[in-house]
């Protein structure tokens, strides 16, 4: 960074639990307040969804035109990050933090565009729903049957300077849906089938509140021991370090998400290893190798340090590495529901437990299996 680089902009996230709870409305109301205080603010991207009250909130705010780009014969509109940079406002309003840009855009994700704005010293106001958080992805899937595709890595939300909970009761939300405020009728009917079931809304709302509370807590200054002051009974504990044991099996993705979440809440470091019997992953067939590499990349994207170890005995290699790196907890997956595979899995757990005296071993539930009938 050069000496005259601008101070990084501040990021404020309006967190909700469903479309229609009023995130965008509240963000725009704040934008108008900010403008009235004489701050130079623009709307960088805004998704009207045809909602009249929300659209009215943009009145008097300068809107930076979107960028149009063609993909496979259709035209798409995305935020024009470069135009906002050239316009250089103090604050930019950017709806839908987890949005994925159309292929051919300079960056894959809107949060990457937002980082560009923040790096240029522009403050950003943005919106998201809790179900787009990466570490909750399996939990959401297993309870709703909806696999949320547009996700935000937890560390990206953690970097926000402020997270504000936008609350509306599910009863009021369902009313708004019925009155056609949220979606046109045919879309409203479809929405009622998945995310807008009452129990789902209640559960997502609770998750959003807990996430907002966590965001407040993690911004409180730490004491030396990794505890926020006065929030939990302070007890001297060695610093926790988690080690995730990856495999080419698909359940490793759930292991990575869960491990990341537990590590964050414990304020622990998180590492991940794969033990290869041969050098350069030669023990894997190409398809397995590709999956494993995807898992390693996924772990790195969530800011988990990864290593490939070599050893003929996986349990021994894992435990030796764990000991060397001061690991306190080892996380493994339970791979297959079949009896034989699970027998091997728990035999592997036993071996690790037997070798890793003093460390705890957690067999992470496969939350990628749907457990609740729709």
């Amino acid at each position, binding site marked *: 960074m050069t000496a005259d680089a601008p101070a990084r902009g501040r990021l404020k996230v309006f967190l909700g639990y469903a479309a229609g709870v009023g995130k965008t409305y509240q963000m725009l109301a704040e934008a108008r307040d900010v403008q009235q205080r004489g701050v130079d603010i623009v709307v960088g991207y805004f998704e009207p969804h045809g909602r009249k009250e929300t659209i009215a909130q943009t009145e008097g705010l300068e809107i930076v035109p979107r960028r149009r780009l063609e993909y496979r014969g259709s035209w798409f509109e995305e935020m024009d990050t470069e135009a906002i940079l050239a316009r250089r406002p103090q604050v930019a309003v950017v709806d839908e933090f987890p949005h994925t840009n159309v292929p051919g855009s300079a960056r894959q994700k809107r949060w990457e565009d937002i980082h560009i704005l923040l790096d240029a010293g522009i403050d950003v106001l943005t919106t998201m729903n809790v179900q787009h958080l990466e570490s909750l992805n399996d939990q959401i899937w297993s309870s709703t049957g909806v696999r949320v595709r547009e996700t935000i890595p937890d560390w990206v939300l953690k970097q926000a300077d402020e997270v*504000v909970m936008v609350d509306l009761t599910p009863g009021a939300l369902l009313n708004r849906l019925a009155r056609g405020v949220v979606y046109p009728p045919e879309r409203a009917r479809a929405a009622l089938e998945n995310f807008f079931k009452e129990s789902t809304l*209640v559960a997502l709302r609770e998750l959003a509140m*807990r996430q907002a509370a966590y965001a407040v807590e993690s911004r409180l200054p730490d004491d030396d021991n990794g505890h926020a002051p006065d929030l939990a009974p302070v007890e001297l504990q060695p610093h926790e370090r988690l080690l995730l044991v990856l495999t080419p099996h698909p359940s490793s993705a759930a292991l990575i998400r869960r491990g990341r979440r537990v590590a964050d809440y414990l304020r622990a470091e998180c590492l991940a290893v794969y033990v290869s019997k041969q050098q350069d992953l030669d023990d894997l067939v190409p398809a397995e190798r590709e999956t494993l590499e995807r898992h390693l990349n996924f772990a790195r994207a969530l800011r988990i340090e990864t290593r490939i170890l070599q050893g003929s005995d996986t349990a021994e290699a894992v435990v030796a590495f764990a000991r060397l790196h001061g690991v306190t907890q080892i996380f493994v997956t339970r791979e297959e529901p079949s009896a034989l595979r699970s027998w091997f899995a*728990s035999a592997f757990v036993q071996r690790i437990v037997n070798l890793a005296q003093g460390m705890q071993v957690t067999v992470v*539930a496969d939350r990628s299996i749907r457990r609740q009938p729709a």
Partner: protein
Amino acid sequence: MNADSHRDPEALLRQVEAAERAERRGQLKIFLGYASGVGKSFKLFDEGRRRHERGEDVVVAATQSNIPAELDAMVRTFESIPTKDVAGVPVIDVQAVLARHPQVCLVDGLAYDNPAGSRHARRYQDVEELIEAGVSVLTSINLEYIAEEQEFVRSVLGTARTDTVPQDFIDGAEEVVVVDAPPSAESAEAQLLSQLRQRALLLTAGVVDRQLEAYLRLHGIQSAWGTQERILVCMTPRANAAKMLASGRRNADRFHGELFAIYVMQTNLTDDDRLALDRNVTLARAQQAHVETLEGKDPVGTILEYARAHGITQIYVGHNLRRGWRNRLGGTPLDRLIRDAEGIDVRVFPQ
């Protein structure tokens, strides 16, 4: 609802009466904040305005003193039933509200002690009477005025409140909305406010969690959401429960979750086993776990059944290193626990 109620006419009558009472009752909606100035009053009156626009009969029964001009202008657009001023304390005129009997009544500020000689000692009891009479109430409160939070409030603010509302009253509301906004400036005071803010969010999450549980139970859905982390420590006479319980407590605290500890009764316990078990139960209580002793011929099945019924997300078990593992057909209990604990993490503690 149990099966007997279908046959017992008395029980059936009680149910019908309860349902009728619930139907006659007004609805209670509470806007919960963590400090003054976060916008509870604005949200309250804004909802009142929208309800009025949709044709509901809305009146104001109490407002806060010293409100900003903008809010005052908003309040003036409503029909008001003035409070009675008793020894400098505004008291809701319950009789006048009941005589007017609106559909919806706005009460800005729930936590007030009424002066001696008033109809009720506390304002929330006035509100309760209105609801009983079929008037719906929208009201507001700050976290620091909830009775059960006073120990926490004292630890943060150095002083407790006396004019409080019991948590039960909050839990009984049909709807609780958290009004959230970051403290305005970075300061030592902002840090205190952040602690209250976090607590307000968690408290509301707790209310929502109980609503979710009630909803799932009512509709016969087995809870699988795991919105709140719930840790279950499995105790045996020989397991080193102290370590599991200490770790369980710490993890439950970090997740703001709940801790459970169970023991599945076994036959042929020695006297030493019994003593060890008593010690473990005492330890579990000291760690503020929900402790239960269960009966069941099949310990693993009993543990899992309990775990599913209580929405457990993590099970902690001890593993004895000296005992052989592969000496039983069909695997050891730990094998089975790991295999069948669908959707629940199993953490193994070396013993």
